């Protein structure tokens, strides 16, 4: 009886030892040689795996960083939106380089078509996602550019940084937005834009992307940009461009003087986190909403094309 146990133990140990030897040589033969810096750099990244950098997860980003450092000796064009400049500096330190400083960004909702401003004309009872609603019609308010309010952006956000405001039916971006761009991709109407956070979180932007002429735009929404060009004329810094009946404020050029905000006849230009105005002119916009919105909108020209295709 005892013999059986002893034999079993001995034979299994021998098989195990033999397998270990074979496995050792196989492991040596097929060893993957990896730059140890990749692990180090990955350690320094936020591990959010959000894809905001444009690479598949933090590991992918770390590999790309190391590769670029080895080949080009530079980290230009790389940016981790979640970690920001600090993270990039740490990662660059590991690689013995210096990362370029980048202005922190935040997502901005460029639509103010709330239930009050853009009343519903029809009822949509299909599947509650923006992608469907967009493919079926111009939406409940009738504005073919406006927010559909089904919350595809909220679903897409990994950081719990965006939520739907029950009252207005519009999404609101919270302060903890890391500008990973997931919501920008998710929005079928390209309403969300990543803009620079701005000094002291102060931002000015056109909260509308409607490219229709003034009449039809105003018919659907009280606060639509009607393309009157008043802001364009008043801007002392050439930060505003007019394209397809729509004003766009370049956040790189905008100096936050707020002249356009006063000028806008439909109050389509929003200012955020500014102190209340002292002059007699009552503040056109209240910086009421918690904080979410950054400055102007950029994609006027860029985003037209995909839109045309879709329709």
């Amino acid at each position, binding site marked *: 009886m005892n013999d059986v146990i002893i034999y079993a133990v001995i034979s299994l140990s021998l098989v195990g030892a033999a397998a270990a030897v074979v496995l050792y040589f196989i492991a040596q033969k097929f060893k993957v040689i990896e730059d140890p810096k990749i692990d180090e750099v990955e350690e320094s990244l936020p591990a959010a795996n959000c894809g905001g950098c444009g690479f598949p997860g933090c590991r992918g980003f770390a590999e790309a960083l190391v590769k670029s450092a080895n080949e080009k000796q530079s980290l230009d064009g790389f940016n981790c939106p979640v970690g920001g400049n600090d993270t990039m500096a740490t990662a660059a330190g590991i690689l013995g380089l210096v990362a370029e400083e980048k202005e922190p960004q935040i997502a901005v909702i460029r639509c103010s078509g709330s239930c009050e401003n853009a009343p519903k*004309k*029809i009822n949509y*009872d*299909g*599947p509650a996602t923006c*992608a*469907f609603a967009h*493919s*079926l*019609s*111009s939406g409940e308010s*009738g504005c*073919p550019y406006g927010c559909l309010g089904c919350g595809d952006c909220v679903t897409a956000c990994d950081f719990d940084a965006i939520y739907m405001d029950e009252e207005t039916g519009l999404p609101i971006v919270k302060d903890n937005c890391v500008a990973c761009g997931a919501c920008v991709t998710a929005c079928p109407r390209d309403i969300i834009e990543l803009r620079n956070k701005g000094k002291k979180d102060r931002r000015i932007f056109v909260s509308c992307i409607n490219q*229709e002429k003034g009449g*039809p735009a105003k018919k659907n929404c009280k606060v639509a940009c009607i393309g009157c060009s008043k802001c364009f004329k008043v801007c002392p810094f050439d930060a505003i461009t007019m394209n397809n009946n729509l004003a766009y404020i370049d956040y790189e050029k905008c100096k936050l003087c707020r002249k356009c905000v006063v000028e806008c006849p439909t109050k389509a230009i929003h200012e955020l986190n500014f102190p209340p105005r002292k002059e007699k002119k009552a503040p056109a916009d209240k910086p009421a909403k918690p904080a979410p919105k950054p400055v102007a909108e950029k994609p006027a020209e860029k985003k037209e094309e995909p839109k045309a295709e879709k*329709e």
Partner: protein
Amino acid sequence: MSVLKTFKIGGVHPPECKYSAGEAIKALELPKQVTIPIAQSLGAPSKAVVAKGDEVKVGQLIAKGEAFISSNIHSSVSGKVLKLDEVLDQSGYRRPCIIINVDGDEWDENIDRSTELKKDITATKEEIIKKIQEMGIVGLGGATFPSHVKLMVPDGKKAEVLVINGVECEPYLTADHRLMLEMADEMVIGIQILMKGLDVKRAIVGVENNKPDVIEHLNNRVKDYPGIEVCALKVQYPQGGEKQLIDAAIGRQVPSGKLPIEVGAVVNNVGTAFAVYEAVQKNKPLIDRVVTVTGKNLKETGNFMVRIGTSVNELIEKVGGLPEDTAKVVSGGPMMGKALNSTDVPVVKGTSGILTFEEGEAKRVETTNCIRCAKCITVCPMGLEPVLIAQYAGNELYENVEAERAMDCIECGSCSYTCPAGQPLLDYIRLGKYKVGEIIRNRSKK
């Protein structure tokens, strides 16, 4: 009694509700203003050739189709062009349209307006195709594919049989039904013209067995015309689908991703055959069509000959106005039609019916979890697995959507109709198809 033919895979039997089947086609009064969208067929949009302030006559060319798959558009009224503008159309979006204020009813002098039946086909094959292109004829079954393209058989392929679609499998709609009863002679000559244009000796008119009056009437008419036969089909939705009809009528199966010409068949709608007759024999462009206006809650229902560009509002006024309890107005049939955003949209070449739903009817069933009953797979006429495609699309796995042959889906809606869990299967499949279409286009660009 012989067993009636039908297609072999899938199919459902929605209630027919053909309330307006007994209503003769009436011409709708001339509207005061028409709005004619310049993209009314599949393919590239046409290019407007009139400007603001131009005087136009009925039948005058107002937009020219320049691409190969594109169609001409003619004025359906006489009057003055008010403007070219973007107007809300049936898609729910604003699209470029030509708006014409009606003034009198002056027709282009080349159009033969007599009601006399013109039997002799003098035009040659090439002339027929050219005429059909010139007159802006498109498939009137709903897909609005330019008809001249269908008649140009690609090299290496041979058309053997022309299948005429008189199935009208959508519930509620009766436009084709009435057309086949009232314009049978014209239609049969139209079929002959199409046969000549295609160079085929055989044509089959597929009609579902729920229209015995049509089958009898047509059988009497086609006696004098060799090569045309009427085929009674067992009622089953979606028999009006091109591929389903070919399977039902001549027993051939079109391979996945291929056109009917692959099996030697060309399919045209009865409405198209009638339009072809008018175009070739009478020189009349496609400026009007039969539209069914129906609904359970309407005071009366009817079939109307409507000029293209007339507002849907006028059609609804004609049958006594929109009842209070209307929850949805649909353009097309209940299975494949599209709910309208507004009733102030124009009738276009592809509008086969206007349908109203009252509150109870219009409600979507509450969506619950899939119970894996596979009913959607049983009813899919293309032999697909709708539930699988829908789940892939919902999870954004578009490669799998493509691998499951989603592009073969004809969007008949049988899966959503039959689903006991009320899952919006077709909505998801459409989303998947849209994304896959994008992927395929990007791939071919590279």
